[in-house]
């Protein structure tokens, strides 16, 4: 089958359909995944295809939903539990971090928990403080979990398919701002191997390490930078933990400069881990400190202008990159 143009949302849906056709143990559960078709429409039409036992509308009870998924995964099923917003993760962290993540270890390898927790995060809809967060760092700090955040349409498909073959619990975080994004999907050709980073753009002057929607902001910034004679290499890490660090470390060794770009609030975010690893391993190669461009250390405000201003934009990334590489002061410091 050749590549087709589709959306991130439809690619996700196709991945679910293909996985469910291939593997009868896969089922979906979550709030509004059935009749409603998912809060962002990802599971639209699946109830009609697969029926009520495999597309399960649940009560509003996030701890129970994730807990049920854990039990299902322990007993031969491969559940896809949908958490409508990653902002609700706080209700589920016990089931995620103490149950799903630790069962294999705690029980000495007897029990696996092959479940996928699908959720979405990020700003862009004026959802305010409780519907706009980027909380991947809570999950990346939990050994036993795999944390995956697709940026492209093709990855939406392939990473979800791979997640549904993974023997360990996968936290699969989509971005609400990407659902309608169009791109190529080739079901025969993944962007890269499971667990591995992908270089989205090559460049020799600075390495931008990023994931999810910020890949696109970074690529846009890279275009701006190119006009100024700066070639940025953009690495999409895709799978945050366990982390394939070799690829971006090699890139930084080549370029000598690194920026880490995330939407999550700066302090204690995953950007810190990426920054620390680069500084640790590329110390002798770095011409400048590793720069983090991340969300402001604030809850997300509802006002659209404030919301936009609270997370990195292509412009901010580009200006910072230019400062880093060419010592050109940015608009705000000029």
């Amino acid at each position, binding site marked *: 089958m050749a590549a087709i143009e589709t959306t991130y949302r439809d690619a996700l849906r196709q991945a679910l359909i293909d996985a469910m056709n291939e593997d009868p143990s896969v089922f979906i559960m979550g*709030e*509004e995944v059935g009749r409603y078709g998912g809060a962002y429409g990802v599971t639209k039409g699946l109830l009609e295809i697969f029926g009520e036992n495999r597309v399960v*509308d649940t009560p*509003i009870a996030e701890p129970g939903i994730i807990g049920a998924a854990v039990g299902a995964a322990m007993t031969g099923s491969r559940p896809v539990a949908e958490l409508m917003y990653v902002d609700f993760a706080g209700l589920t962290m016990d089931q995620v971090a103490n149950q799903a993540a630790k069962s294999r270890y705690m029980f000495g390898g007897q029990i696996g928990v092959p479940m996928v927790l699908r959720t979405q995060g990020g700003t862009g809809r004026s959802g305010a403080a409780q*519907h706009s967060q980027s909380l991947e760092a809570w999950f990346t700090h939990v050994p036993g979990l795999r944390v995956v955040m697709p940026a492209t349409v093709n990855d939406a498909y392939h990473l979800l398919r791979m997640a549904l073959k993974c023997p360990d619990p996968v936290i699969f975080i989509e971005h609400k701002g990407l659902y309608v994004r169009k791109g190529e999907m080739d079901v025969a050709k993944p962007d890269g191997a499971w667990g591995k980073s992908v270089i989205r753009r090559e460049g020799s002057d600075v390495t931008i390490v990023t994931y999810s929607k910020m890949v696109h902001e970074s690529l846009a910034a890279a275009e701006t930078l190119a006009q100024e004679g700066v070639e940025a290499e953009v690495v999409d890490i895709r799978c945050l933990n366990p982390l394939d660090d070799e690829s971006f470390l090699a890139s930084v060794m080549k370029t000598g400069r690194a920026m880490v770009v995330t939407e999550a609030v700066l302090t204690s975010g995953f950007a810190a881990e990426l920054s620390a690893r680069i500084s640790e391993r590329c110390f002798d190669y770095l011409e*400048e*400190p590793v720069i983090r461009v*991340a969300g402001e250390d604030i809850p997300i405000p509802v*006002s659209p202008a*404030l919301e936009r201003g609270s997370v990195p934009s292509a412009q901010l990334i580009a200006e910072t990159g230019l400062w880093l590489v060419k010592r050109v002061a940015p608009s705000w410091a000029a």
Partner: protein
Amino acid sequence: MATGGNKLLLDLYRTMRRIRTFEERVNELFVRGETAGSMLHMSIGEEAISGVCETMEQGDSFTTHHRGHGIFIARGADPNRMMSEIAGKADGYCSGKGGSMHIADMGLGALGANAIVGGGIPHVVGAGMSYRNRGLKNVSVAFFGDGASQQGILYEAMNMAALWKLPVVFCCINNQYGMGTRIDRAAANTNLHERAIACGLNGVAVDGGDVEEVHEASERIMTAARNGRPGFITLTCYRFYGHARLDKSPYRDEAEEAEGRKRDALVNARARLIDRKTADAASLDALDEAAAEEMNAAVAHAIAALPPDQDSMFRDVYAEGELRPRPLREHLSMILGEAR
């Protein structure tokens, strides 16, 4: 008949009309592209909640869910500041930081609207503890939906309230739906107050089509709570429109909607007022007109209001005078600025 008689009914009618008109204007604000986003949850069909609010007193507090506009209006909130907040403007209740789902007015005891289903429920337990510890005769009321009744935290909160005999009321607005899920597909036992009773509360179900019944039952429950017997009210009603502004409710059929919308406390109250000759149609129309004017003004106010300035983003993360977060650009300047 409500304990307060016809005069009360007229008051409740006015409140209910103001709520409905407010919600209609929120809708209009959205259509005009002036709201902060589309996560707008209208409470049309739930106006009988006014009957509960009426039984609350000065100093009582409450928390609401995401569909809280009507409750705020019934408790006396300023439509201008509400509408401004919904538009994300600087003079809104939350300075444009909260929006529709987070309206709050501490002056009215409004501890805030919550966009986490069930998130505000346990707060009333703590409020009840505060009142008890300080010897205050106040009640704290949690308003939430039928969907929230499946969240475990409700049972934790109900048990604590019952165990400690706190002045707390749980008020479940059973509009039959949590998004696209009808209550019978969410709860094994749809008589939600029975669960509350089993947890040790004083539980009742009331007809949300009849604001007088709501008021009367609520008065009983509220008085008992004030005296240390916490309660639970399920107000049965119907969500007239979609879950949020963009939802057209394709998951339910028209017949059901038509039937559901018959449970209309506003229409019923109007008929009763005329029937009992407390008011004639003309005077009620005048009252409706006044509500329309008030809410039109709120829309105009919100549209004219100024957006918050960018720097306000960094305020109120911590208390005034405490550290404010270091803006990213400041941080970057420390790293890349002149010094280097």
